[in-house]
């Protein structure tokens, strides 16, 4: 029996389905696609969907449906069948689950979600690093220049005065950052820029655009 084209594009449909499913939680395509656990998940799912498609073809041929069911519809039915079977596959003896494959799959899915979230946290770090650099560049910050230090303190106060926070809290945090710089030998400007970028990416975008 020749292999139909639907067997080739089914993994692509599975990929779209899994990305959509995970995107609801992760909300970042690069974070979902950026680690091996997702691709293993996709391979398992694709193999199961291809098997389901094969059985659907067999069933369709046996019943001799006139004109046949459109291949795309069969592919969608295969994904739906795979999902429902994998989500409820449990072997019970005496009413108690001996082998609960659906639980293993759920655990693995959560593992994929967690790895994607970890990947997104790495992207967040990169964003903070990039925005911090851009803030320092815009201000033309030079370490030890009193004017630049004052400018960075103003930026900190602008970005960090929100909600019920008052200037006393913000001043205390500035003193803490200064103290931390003295202890670690780090740059005051870099620490302020990093803190601001961590707190409010939108504020940084507006600041850089101004």
């Amino acid at each position, binding site marked *: 029996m020749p292999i139909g084209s639907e067997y080739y594009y089914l993994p692509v449909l599975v990929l779209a389905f899994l990305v959509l499913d995970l995107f609801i*939680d*992760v*909300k*970042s395509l690069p*974070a979902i696609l950026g680690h091996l656990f997702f691709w293993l998940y996709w391979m398992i799912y694709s193999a199961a969907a291809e098997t389901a498609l094969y059985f659907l073809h067999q069933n369709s041929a046996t019943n001799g449906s006139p004109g046949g069911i459109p291949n795309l519809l069969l592919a969608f039915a295969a994904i739906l069948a795979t999902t429902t079977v994998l989500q409820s596959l449990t072997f019970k003896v005496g009413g108690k689950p001996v082998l609960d494959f659906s639980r293993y799959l759920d*655990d693995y899915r*959560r*593992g994929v*979600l*967690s790895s*994607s*979230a*970890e990947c*997104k*946290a790495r*992207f*967040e*770090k990169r964003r*903070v690093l990039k925005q911090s650099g851009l803030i320092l560049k815009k201000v033309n910050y030079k370490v030890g220049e009193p004017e630049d230090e004052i400018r960075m303190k103003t930026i900190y106060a602008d970005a960090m005065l*929100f*909600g*019920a926070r008052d200037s006393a*809290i913000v001043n205390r*945090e500035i003193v803490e950052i200064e103290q931390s710089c003295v202890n670690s030998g780090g740059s005051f400007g870099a620490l302020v820029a990093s*803190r601001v970028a*961590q*707190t*409010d*990416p939108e504020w940084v975008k507006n600041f850089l655009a101004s």
Partner: protein
Amino acid sequence: MAATIEIAQAQASLYQDFDTTRVFKFILQKSAAPGWMVVKELGQDADKTKASLVKLRNLGLLEGSGDGLDGFYHSTSLGYALNEVL
């Protein structure tokens, strides 16, 4: 079974701790976020948010790189499992 017990323990620990639950749900919603972003977005006190993050980390619901509010946090598998029953 062990995971079920951990979920039940975490759920009991978050019961009536609305501030920590809000922090947890915010990080789940963002999937990953720096501690200071949580402070601003939720409008919570920085020290309270820090305590919530420590608690969530100790419960195994969050993982993070860095300490306190300067860390970047994301949910663990256990966190996603708890989210399904919250």
